[in-house]
Protein backbone atom coordinates (compact mmCIF):
# COMPACT_ATOMS: atom_id res chain seq x y z
CA UNK A 1 0.00 0.00 0.00
CA UNK A 2 1.15 3.50 -0.75
CA UNK A 3 -1.57 5.84 0.37
CA UNK A 4 -1.63 9.61 0.66
CA UNK A 5 -4.40 11.28 2.63
CA UNK A 6 -4.76 15.03 2.89
CA UNK A 7 -7.05 17.14 5.03
CA UNK A 8 -7.49 19.86 2.41
CA UNK A 9 -10.80 20.14 0.54
CA UNK A 10 -10.52 23.38 -1.37
CA UNK A 11 -13.23 23.94 -3.94
CA UNK A 12 -12.03 23.62 -7.58
CA UNK A 13 -8.79 22.02 -6.40
CA UNK A 14 -9.68 18.87 -4.48
CA UNK A 15 -9.83 15.94 -4.92
CA UNK A 16 -8.53 16.75 -8.42
CA UNK A 17 -8.12 20.19 -9.90
CA UNK A 18 -11.14 21.22 -11.98
CA UNK A 19 -10.82 24.96 -12.46
CA UNK A 20 -11.64 25.03 -16.18
CA UNK A 21 -14.95 23.95 -17.64
CA UNK A 22 -16.76 24.30 -20.97
CA UNK A 23 -15.97 28.03 -21.13
CA UNK A 24 -12.26 27.48 -21.69
CA UNK A 25 -12.79 24.55 -24.08
CA UNK A 26 -15.17 26.66 -26.18
CA UNK A 27 -12.85 29.64 -26.04
CA UNK A 28 -9.85 27.59 -27.19
CA UNK A 29 -11.89 26.04 -29.97
CA UNK A 30 -13.22 29.36 -31.25
CA UNK A 31 -9.78 30.94 -30.89
CA UNK A 32 -8.34 28.18 -33.09
CA UNK A 33 -11.19 28.43 -35.60
CA UNK A 34 -10.84 32.21 -35.96
CA UNK A 35 -7.05 31.83 -36.19
CA UNK A 36 -7.53 29.41 -39.08
CA UNK A 37 -10.06 31.74 -40.75
CA UNK A 38 -7.60 34.63 -40.54
CA UNK A 39 -4.83 32.55 -42.07
CA UNK A 40 -7.09 31.41 -44.93
CA UNK A 41 -8.51 34.83 -45.70
CA UNK A 42 -5.04 36.35 -45.32
CA UNK A 43 -3.77 33.84 -47.84
CA UNK A 44 -6.54 34.70 -50.27
CA UNK A 45 -5.72 38.40 -49.94
CA UNK A 46 -2.04 37.69 -50.39
CA UNK A 47 -2.84 35.82 -53.58
CA UNK A 48 -4.98 38.70 -54.86
CA UNK A 49 -8.16 36.65 -54.81
CA UNK A 50 -10.18 39.66 -53.65
CA UNK A 51 -10.55 40.40 -57.36
CA UNK A 52 -12.99 37.50 -57.49
CA UNK A 53 -16.40 38.83 -56.64
CA UNK A 54 -17.42 35.86 -54.48
CA UNK A 55 -14.13 35.48 -52.63
CA UNK A 56 -14.58 34.24 -49.05
CA UNK A 57 -12.21 36.96 -47.91
CA UNK A 58 -15.26 39.25 -48.01
CA UNK A 59 -17.28 37.17 -45.56
CA UNK A 60 -14.61 35.74 -43.24
CA UNK A 61 -13.56 38.89 -41.32
CA UNK A 62 -17.04 39.83 -40.10
CA UNK A 63 -17.77 36.23 -39.12
CA UNK A 64 -14.40 36.15 -37.38
CA UNK A 65 -15.25 39.24 -35.36
CA UNK A 66 -18.59 37.79 -34.25
CA UNK A 67 -17.14 34.37 -33.43
CA UNK A 68 -14.17 35.77 -31.55
CA UNK A 69 -16.45 37.97 -29.50
CA UNK A 70 -18.45 34.89 -28.51
CA UNK A 71 -15.19 33.16 -27.56
CA UNK A 72 -14.01 36.10 -25.51
CA UNK A 73 -17.36 36.22 -23.76
CA UNK A 74 -16.92 32.56 -22.82
CA UNK A 75 -13.45 33.41 -21.47
CA UNK A 76 -14.94 36.28 -19.50
CA UNK A 77 -17.54 33.93 -18.00
CA UNK A 78 -14.70 31.78 -16.69
CA UNK A 79 -13.08 34.61 -14.73
CA UNK A 80 -13.84 34.56 -11.01
CA UNK A 81 -12.98 38.20 -10.32
CA UNK A 82 -14.80 39.62 -13.32
CA UNK A 83 -14.76 43.30 -12.35
CA UNK A 84 -10.98 43.18 -12.43
CA UNK A 85 -10.62 41.87 -15.99
CA UNK A 86 -9.22 45.25 -17.05
CA UNK A 87 -6.17 44.49 -14.94
CA UNK A 88 -4.93 42.37 -17.85
CA UNK A 89 -4.70 45.55 -19.89
CA UNK A 90 -2.85 47.75 -17.43
CA UNK A 91 0.25 45.58 -17.74
CA UNK A 92 2.15 43.29 -20.07
CA UNK A 93 3.71 40.27 -18.37
CA UNK A 94 6.31 38.89 -20.71
CA UNK A 95 6.50 35.47 -19.00
CA UNK A 96 2.73 34.96 -19.01
CA UNK A 97 1.18 33.29 -22.09
CA UNK A 98 -2.20 34.55 -20.93
CA UNK A 99 -0.91 38.11 -21.02
CA UNK A 100 0.41 37.57 -24.55
CA UNK A 101 -2.97 36.13 -25.49
CA UNK A 102 -4.87 39.07 -24.03
CA UNK A 103 -2.81 41.48 -26.11
CA UNK A 104 -2.86 39.32 -29.25
CA UNK A 105 -6.67 39.37 -29.05
CA UNK A 106 -6.56 43.17 -28.95
CA UNK A 107 -4.45 43.20 -32.14
CA UNK A 108 -6.60 40.61 -33.88
CA UNK A 109 -9.69 42.84 -33.94
CA UNK A 110 -8.16 45.70 -35.98
CA UNK A 111 -6.65 43.15 -38.37
CA UNK A 112 -10.07 41.57 -38.91
CA UNK A 113 -11.69 44.98 -39.24
CA UNK A 114 -9.10 46.04 -41.83
CA UNK A 115 -9.86 42.83 -43.74
CA UNK A 116 -13.57 43.57 -43.56
CA UNK A 117 -13.14 47.10 -44.90
CA UNK A 118 -11.50 46.01 -48.14
CA UNK A 119 -15.09 46.02 -49.30
CA UNK A 120 -17.50 47.62 -46.84
CA UNK A 121 -20.38 45.25 -45.98
CA UNK A 122 -23.59 46.53 -47.60
CA UNK A 123 -25.48 47.06 -44.37
CA UNK A 124 -22.76 49.35 -43.03
CA UNK A 125 -22.25 51.30 -46.22
CA UNK A 126 -25.16 53.69 -45.77
CA UNK A 127 -24.94 54.16 -42.04
CA UNK A 128 -21.24 54.84 -41.91
CA UNK A 129 -20.19 56.64 -45.09
CA UNK A 130 -16.75 57.26 -43.62
CA UNK A 131 -16.00 53.55 -43.98
CA UNK A 132 -16.15 53.97 -47.73
CA UNK A 133 -13.25 56.42 -47.47
CA UNK A 134 -11.23 53.94 -45.42
CA UNK A 135 -11.96 51.28 -47.99
CA UNK A 136 -10.80 53.55 -50.80
CA UNK A 137 -7.63 54.27 -48.87
CA UNK A 138 -6.94 50.54 -48.48
CA UNK A 139 -7.52 49.88 -52.15
CA UNK A 140 -5.20 52.61 -53.47
CA UNK A 141 -2.53 50.02 -54.21
CA UNK A 142 -2.74 46.21 -54.24
CA UNK A 143 0.23 46.29 -51.86
CA UNK A 144 -1.97 47.55 -49.05
CA UNK A 145 -4.43 44.68 -49.43
CA UNK A 146 -1.52 42.27 -49.56
CA UNK A 147 -0.12 43.78 -46.34
CA UNK A 148 -3.48 43.25 -44.62
CA UNK A 149 -3.31 39.65 -45.83
CA UNK A 150 0.14 39.14 -44.36
CA UNK A 151 -0.85 40.74 -41.04
CA UNK A 152 -3.89 38.46 -40.85
CA UNK A 153 -1.76 35.39 -41.52
CA UNK A 154 0.82 36.40 -38.90
CA UNK A 155 -1.75 37.21 -36.22
CA UNK A 156 -3.74 34.09 -37.10
CA UNK A 157 -0.65 31.96 -36.50
CA UNK A 158 0.06 33.80 -33.23
CA UNK A 159 -3.53 33.32 -32.06
CA UNK A 160 -3.65 29.64 -33.03
CA UNK A 161 -0.34 28.78 -31.40
CA UNK A 162 -1.23 30.76 -28.30
CA UNK A 163 -4.38 28.69 -27.67
CA UNK A 164 -2.11 25.67 -27.30
CA UNK A 165 0.73 27.35 -25.42
CA UNK A 166 -1.76 28.64 -22.88
CA UNK A 167 -2.12 25.04 -21.71
CA UNK A 168 1.32 23.69 -22.57
CA UNK A 169 3.10 26.24 -20.39
CA UNK A 170 1.66 24.65 -17.26
CA UNK A 171 4.49 22.40 -16.14
CA UNK A 172 2.35 21.35 -13.20
CA UNK A 173 -0.11 19.52 -15.50
CA UNK A 174 1.92 16.87 -17.31
CA UNK A 175 -0.63 16.08 -20.04
CA UNK A 176 -0.58 19.70 -21.21
CA UNK A 177 3.12 20.13 -20.77
CA UNK A 178 4.07 19.28 -24.38
CA UNK A 179 5.49 21.72 -26.88
CA UNK A 180 3.51 19.92 -29.60
CA UNK A 181 0.25 21.31 -28.22
CA UNK A 182 0.71 24.76 -29.80
CA UNK A 183 1.23 23.26 -33.23
CA UNK A 184 -1.57 20.74 -32.74
CA UNK A 185 -4.11 23.40 -31.82
CA UNK A 186 -2.94 25.63 -34.67
CA UNK A 187 -3.29 22.78 -37.18
CA UNK A 188 -6.65 21.77 -35.78
CA UNK A 189 -7.73 25.41 -35.99
CA UNK A 190 -6.74 25.70 -39.66
CA UNK A 191 -8.41 22.36 -40.36
CA UNK A 192 -11.72 23.34 -38.73
CA UNK A 193 -11.59 26.73 -40.45
CA UNK A 194 -11.02 25.04 -43.83
CA UNK A 195 -13.97 22.76 -43.19
CA UNK A 196 -16.14 25.70 -42.15
CA UNK A 197 -15.27 27.91 -45.12
CA UNK A 198 -15.49 24.98 -47.51
CA UNK A 199 -19.11 24.63 -46.45
CA UNK A 200 -20.08 28.27 -46.74
CA UNK A 201 -17.89 29.38 -49.67
CA UNK A 202 -19.85 30.70 -52.64
CA UNK A 203 -16.87 30.35 -54.93
CA UNK A 204 -16.59 26.74 -56.21
CA UNK A 205 -12.81 26.89 -56.75
CA UNK A 206 -12.21 28.01 -53.18
CA UNK A 207 -14.52 25.39 -51.79
CA UNK A 208 -12.71 22.64 -53.68
CA UNK A 209 -9.28 24.02 -52.81
CA UNK A 210 -10.13 24.09 -49.10
CA UNK A 211 -11.44 20.52 -49.11
CA UNK A 212 -8.16 19.36 -50.64
CA UNK A 213 -6.12 21.46 -48.22
CA UNK A 214 -8.13 20.17 -45.27
CA UNK A 215 -7.17 16.62 -46.15
CA UNK A 216 -3.57 17.70 -45.76
CA UNK A 217 -4.29 19.41 -42.44
CA UNK A 218 -6.10 16.32 -41.14
CA UNK A 219 -3.12 14.12 -42.02
CA UNK A 220 -0.83 16.62 -40.29
CA UNK A 221 -3.09 16.54 -37.24
CA UNK A 222 -2.83 12.75 -37.03
CA UNK A 223 0.92 13.05 -37.25
CA UNK A 224 1.02 15.69 -34.50
CA UNK A 225 -1.24 13.65 -32.22
CA UNK A 226 1.14 10.72 -32.67
CA UNK A 227 4.11 12.93 -31.81
CA UNK A 228 2.25 14.35 -28.82
CA UNK A 229 1.64 10.87 -27.43
CA UNK A 230 5.15 9.61 -28.20
CA UNK A 231 6.58 12.69 -26.51
CA UNK A 232 4.65 12.02 -23.32
CA UNK A 233 5.36 8.29 -23.33
CA UNK A 234 9.09 8.84 -23.70
CA UNK A 235 9.20 11.34 -20.84
CA UNK A 236 9.01 10.91 -17.06
CA UNK A 237 6.65 8.66 -15.11
CA UNK A 238 4.16 11.48 -14.46
CA UNK A 239 4.03 12.27 -18.18
CA UNK A 240 3.52 8.61 -19.02
CA UNK A 241 0.71 8.43 -16.47
CA UNK A 242 -0.78 11.55 -18.05
CA UNK A 243 -0.71 9.97 -21.53
CA UNK A 244 -2.60 6.98 -20.14
CA UNK A 245 -5.57 9.21 -19.32
CA UNK A 246 -6.26 9.55 -23.06
CA UNK A 247 -4.70 6.24 -24.16
CA UNK A 248 -6.54 3.85 -21.87
CA UNK A 249 -8.06 5.87 -19.06
CA UNK A 250 -11.18 7.88 -18.43
CA UNK A 251 -10.93 10.01 -21.56
CA UNK A 252 -9.69 7.31 -23.94
CA UNK A 253 -13.08 6.34 -25.45
CA UNK A 254 -14.10 9.89 -26.32
CA UNK A 255 -10.60 10.71 -27.54
CA UNK A 256 -10.29 7.74 -29.88
CA UNK A 257 -13.90 7.57 -31.03
CA UNK A 258 -14.86 11.24 -31.35
CA UNK A 259 -11.58 13.07 -31.84
CA UNK A 260 -9.49 10.62 -33.86
CA UNK A 261 -12.13 8.37 -35.43
CA UNK A 262 -15.15 10.54 -36.17
CA UNK A 263 -13.26 13.83 -36.07
CA UNK A 264 -10.29 13.03 -38.29
CA UNK A 265 -10.06 9.56 -39.90
CA UNK A 266 -13.64 9.10 -41.17
CA UNK A 267 -14.04 12.66 -42.53
CA UNK A 268 -10.60 12.31 -44.11
CA UNK A 269 -11.75 9.20 -45.98
CA UNK A 270 -15.04 10.83 -47.03
CA UNK A 271 -13.35 14.02 -48.13
CA UNK A 272 -10.62 12.13 -49.96
CA UNK A 273 -13.25 10.34 -52.02
CA UNK A 274 -15.10 13.62 -52.60
CA UNK A 275 -12.09 15.52 -53.94
CA UNK A 276 -11.39 12.57 -56.24
CA UNK A 277 -14.96 12.89 -57.53
CA UNK A 278 -15.97 9.41 -56.42
CA UNK A 279 -18.71 10.84 -54.25
CA UNK A 280 -20.39 14.23 -54.03
CA UNK A 281 -19.36 16.87 -51.50
CA UNK A 282 -21.79 16.95 -48.57
CA UNK A 283 -21.62 18.88 -45.31
CA UNK A 284 -21.11 15.58 -43.45
CA UNK A 285 -17.30 15.50 -43.47
CA UNK A 286 -16.75 19.19 -42.64
CA UNK A 287 -19.31 19.07 -39.83
CA UNK A 288 -17.53 16.03 -38.40
CA UNK A 289 -14.20 17.87 -38.58
CA UNK A 290 -15.63 20.89 -36.77
CA UNK A 291 -17.25 18.83 -34.01
CA UNK A 292 -14.05 16.78 -33.70
CA UNK A 293 -12.06 19.97 -33.20
CA UNK A 294 -14.43 21.10 -30.47
CA UNK A 295 -14.24 17.74 -28.69
CA UNK A 296 -10.43 17.78 -28.95
CA UNK A 297 -10.40 20.97 -26.86
CA UNK A 298 -12.88 19.52 -24.37
CA UNK A 299 -10.89 16.30 -23.95
CA UNK A 300 -7.58 18.06 -23.48
CA UNK A 301 -8.96 20.72 -21.14
CA UNK A 302 -10.64 18.12 -18.93
CA UNK A 303 -8.09 15.29 -19.12
CA UNK A 304 -5.20 17.68 -18.54
CA UNK A 305 -6.71 18.72 -15.23
CA UNK A 306 -6.67 15.10 -14.09
CA UNK A 307 -2.93 14.86 -14.70
CA UNK A 308 -0.64 15.90 -11.87
CA UNK A 309 2.65 15.38 -10.09
CA UNK A 310 2.73 13.00 -7.17
CA UNK A 311 4.45 13.63 -3.89
CA UNK A 312 6.92 10.89 -3.23
CA UNK A 313 6.28 9.79 0.31
CA UNK A 314 9.70 8.89 1.60
CA UNK A 315 13.37 9.18 0.76
CA UNK A 316 14.12 6.17 -1.41
Amino acid at each position, binding site marked *: *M*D*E*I*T*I*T*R*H*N*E*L*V*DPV*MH*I*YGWEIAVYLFIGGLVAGMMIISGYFLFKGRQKEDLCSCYTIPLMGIVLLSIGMFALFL*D*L*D*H*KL*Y*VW*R*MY*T*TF*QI*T*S*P*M*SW*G*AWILILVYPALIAGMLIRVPWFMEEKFPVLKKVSEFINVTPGRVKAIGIINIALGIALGVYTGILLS*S*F*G*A*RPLWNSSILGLLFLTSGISTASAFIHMIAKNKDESEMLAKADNGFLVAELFLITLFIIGLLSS*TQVHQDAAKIILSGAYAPVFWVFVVGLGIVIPLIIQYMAVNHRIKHTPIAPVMVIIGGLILRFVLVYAG*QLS*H*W*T*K*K*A*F*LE
Partner: protein
Amino acid sequence: MARFGMVIDTKKCVGCMDCVVACKTENNVPEGFNRDWITTDVKGTFPTVKMQIRTERCNHCDNPPCVDCCPCGASHVHDLGGVVLVHHDKCSGCKACIAACPYDARFIHPDGYADKCTFCIHRVEQGMDPACVSVCPTHCMYFGDLDDPNSSVSKLLNSRKYRALISEAGTKPQIYYLD
Protein backbone atom coordinates in the same frame (compact mmCIF):
# COMPACT_ATOMS: atom_id res chain seq x y z
CA MET B 1 18.89 39.84 1.22
CA ALA B 2 16.84 37.53 3.27
CA ARG B 3 15.40 34.31 1.84
CA PHE B 4 12.60 33.07 4.04
CA GLY B 5 11.88 29.39 4.26
CA MET B 6 10.60 26.72 6.58
CA VAL B 7 12.05 23.54 7.91
CA ILE B 8 9.60 20.93 9.15
CA ASP B 9 10.63 17.97 11.23
CA THR B 10 8.49 15.04 10.12
CA LYS B 11 9.69 13.04 13.12
CA LYS B 12 7.89 15.48 15.40
CA CYS B 13 4.67 16.24 13.49
CA VAL B 14 1.71 14.29 14.88
CA GLY B 15 -0.95 15.81 12.59
CA CYS B 16 -2.81 17.61 15.40
CA MET B 17 -3.95 20.33 12.95
CA ASP B 18 -3.16 23.17 15.35
CA CYS B 19 -1.32 24.89 12.49
CA VAL B 20 -4.42 24.61 10.32
CA VAL B 21 -6.65 26.15 12.98
CA ALA B 22 -4.09 28.87 13.78
CA CYS B 23 -3.86 29.84 10.10
CA LYS B 24 -7.61 29.96 9.65
CA THR B 25 -7.97 32.17 12.72
CA GLU B 26 -5.03 34.46 12.02
CA ASN B 27 -5.86 34.99 8.34
CA ASN B 28 -9.65 34.77 8.37
CA VAL B 29 -9.53 31.93 5.89
CA PRO B 30 -13.14 31.39 4.76
CA GLU B 31 -15.11 28.33 5.72
CA GLY B 32 -14.34 25.31 3.57
CA PHE B 33 -10.91 26.53 2.50
CA ASN B 34 -7.40 25.87 3.75
CA ARG B 35 -4.11 27.65 3.25
CA ASP B 36 -2.29 24.84 5.08
CA TRP B 37 -3.17 21.22 5.62
CA ILE B 38 -1.95 17.88 6.93
CA THR B 39 -0.79 15.08 4.65
CA THR B 40 -0.44 11.53 5.87
CA ASP B 41 1.65 9.10 3.88
CA VAL B 42 1.41 5.40 4.58
CA LYS B 43 3.60 2.96 2.74
CA GLY B 44 4.07 -0.81 3.02
CA THR B 45 2.14 -3.77 4.39
CA PHE B 46 1.79 -4.58 8.07
CA PRO B 47 4.06 -5.19 9.95
CA THR B 48 6.55 -3.35 7.72
CA VAL B 49 4.63 -0.10 7.52
CA LYS B 50 6.15 3.36 7.33
CA MET B 51 4.14 6.44 8.06
CA GLN B 52 4.91 10.11 7.68
CA ILE B 53 2.71 12.96 8.82
CA ARG B 54 3.54 16.45 7.64
CA THR B 55 2.08 19.92 7.50
CA GLU B 56 1.99 21.47 4.02
CA ARG B 57 1.36 24.86 2.43
CA CYS B 58 2.59 27.02 -0.45
CA ASN B 59 6.32 26.40 -0.82
CA HIS B 60 7.13 30.02 -1.67
CA CYS B 61 9.13 28.69 -4.57
CA ASP B 62 12.27 30.42 -5.73
CA ASN B 63 11.24 29.80 -9.33
CA PRO B 64 7.49 30.30 -8.96
CA PRO B 65 5.45 29.35 -12.06
CA CYS B 66 2.38 30.90 -10.42
CA VAL B 67 4.05 34.31 -10.65
CA ASP B 68 5.39 33.79 -14.18
CA CYS B 69 1.98 32.86 -15.59
CA CYS B 70 -0.04 35.66 -13.98
CA PRO B 71 -1.35 37.98 -16.73
CA CYS B 72 -2.17 40.80 -14.31
CA GLY B 73 0.99 41.05 -12.25
CA ALA B 74 -1.19 40.15 -9.25
CA SER B 75 0.93 37.18 -8.18
CA HIS B 76 4.31 38.56 -7.25
CA VAL B 77 7.45 38.00 -5.24
CA HIS B 78 7.56 40.25 -2.18
CA ASP B 79 10.66 42.36 -1.59
CA LEU B 80 11.14 40.85 1.83
CA GLY B 81 12.42 37.30 1.87
CA GLY B 82 11.18 36.20 -1.57
CA VAL B 83 7.70 35.49 -0.21
CA VAL B 84 5.15 34.81 -2.97
CA LEU B 85 2.00 36.92 -2.56
CA VAL B 86 -1.14 38.01 -4.46
CA HIS B 87 -2.39 41.59 -4.86
CA HIS B 88 -6.10 40.92 -4.47
CA ASP B 89 -7.12 44.08 -6.30
CA LYS B 90 -5.06 43.18 -9.36
CA CYS B 91 -6.28 39.59 -9.67
CA SER B 92 -8.79 38.80 -12.43
CA GLY B 93 -9.53 35.33 -11.09
CA CYS B 94 -8.25 33.72 -14.28
CA LYS B 95 -6.94 30.73 -12.27
CA ALA B 96 -3.76 30.35 -14.32
CA CYS B 97 -1.74 30.35 -11.09
CA ILE B 98 -3.83 27.48 -9.72
CA ALA B 99 -3.09 25.42 -12.82
CA ALA B 100 0.59 26.37 -12.61
CA CYS B 101 1.16 25.22 -9.03
CA PRO B 102 2.29 21.58 -8.79
CA TYR B 103 1.33 21.59 -5.09
CA ASP B 104 -2.27 22.74 -5.57
CA ALA B 105 -1.53 25.28 -2.87
CA ARG B 106 -3.85 27.96 -4.22
CA PHE B 107 -7.59 28.40 -4.34
CA ILE B 108 -10.11 31.02 -5.33
CA HIS B 109 -11.34 32.99 -2.33
CA PRO B 110 -15.16 33.30 -2.24
CA ASP B 111 -14.63 36.99 -3.07
CA GLY B 112 -13.14 35.92 -6.43
CA TYR B 113 -9.40 36.42 -6.15
CA ALA B 114 -6.62 33.85 -5.88
CA ASP B 115 -5.53 33.15 -2.32
CA LYS B 116 -2.92 31.08 -0.51
CA CYS B 117 -0.39 31.05 2.34
CA THR B 118 1.43 34.36 2.84
CA PHE B 119 3.99 33.05 5.35
CA CYS B 120 2.00 35.44 7.62
CA ILE B 121 4.07 38.25 6.15
CA HIS B 122 2.17 40.76 8.33
CA ARG B 123 3.52 39.00 11.43
CA VAL B 124 6.97 38.35 9.99
CA GLU B 125 7.41 42.04 9.19
CA GLN B 126 6.93 42.68 12.91
CA GLY B 127 9.56 40.14 13.82
CA MET B 128 7.14 37.34 14.73
CA ASP B 129 6.91 33.81 13.38
CA PRO B 130 4.03 32.76 11.11
CA ALA B 131 0.96 31.75 13.13
CA CYS B 132 1.31 28.03 12.30
CA VAL B 133 4.93 27.94 13.45
CA SER B 134 4.19 29.75 16.67
CA VAL B 135 1.37 27.44 17.81
CA CYS B 136 2.84 24.02 16.98
CA PRO B 137 2.77 22.06 20.26
CA THR B 138 5.58 19.72 19.16
CA HIS B 139 7.70 22.56 17.77
CA CYS B 140 8.09 20.65 14.52
CA MET B 141 8.21 23.84 12.39
CA TYR B 142 11.03 26.32 12.04
CA PHE B 143 10.83 29.58 10.12
CA GLY B 144 13.74 31.81 9.21
CA ASP B 145 16.24 33.20 6.77
CA LEU B 146 17.86 30.48 4.67
CA ASP B 147 20.52 32.95 3.51
CA ASP B 148 21.73 33.48 7.06
CA PRO B 149 24.07 30.60 8.01
CA ASN B 150 23.35 31.19 11.70
CA SER B 151 19.56 30.95 11.46
CA SER B 152 17.83 27.94 13.01
CA VAL B 153 16.65 26.81 9.59
CA SER B 154 20.12 26.91 8.03
CA LYS B 155 21.62 25.04 10.98
CA LEU B 156 19.01 22.29 10.76
CA LEU B 157 19.58 21.86 7.04
CA ASN B 158 23.30 21.60 7.68
CA SER B 159 22.92 18.88 10.26
CA ARG B 160 20.00 16.72 9.14
CA LYS B 161 18.90 14.82 6.05
CA TYR B 162 16.14 16.71 4.25
CA ARG B 163 14.21 17.02 1.02
CA ALA B 164 11.62 19.27 -0.53
CA LEU B 165 8.35 18.05 -2.05
CA ILE B 166 8.20 17.44 -5.83
CA SER B 167 11.52 19.19 -6.34
CA GLU B 168 11.62 17.43 -9.73
CA ALA B 169 8.93 19.83 -10.97
CA GLY B 170 11.66 22.48 -10.89
CA THR B 171 9.95 25.24 -8.96
CA LYS B 172 12.67 25.37 -6.24
CA PRO B 173 10.37 24.98 -3.23
CA GLN B 174 11.57 26.66 -0.02
CA ILE B 175 9.98 24.37 2.54
CA TYR B 176 12.22 21.55 3.62
CA TYR B 177 11.18 18.36 5.34
CA LEU B 178 13.58 16.62 7.71
CA ASP B 179 13.35 12.86 7.33
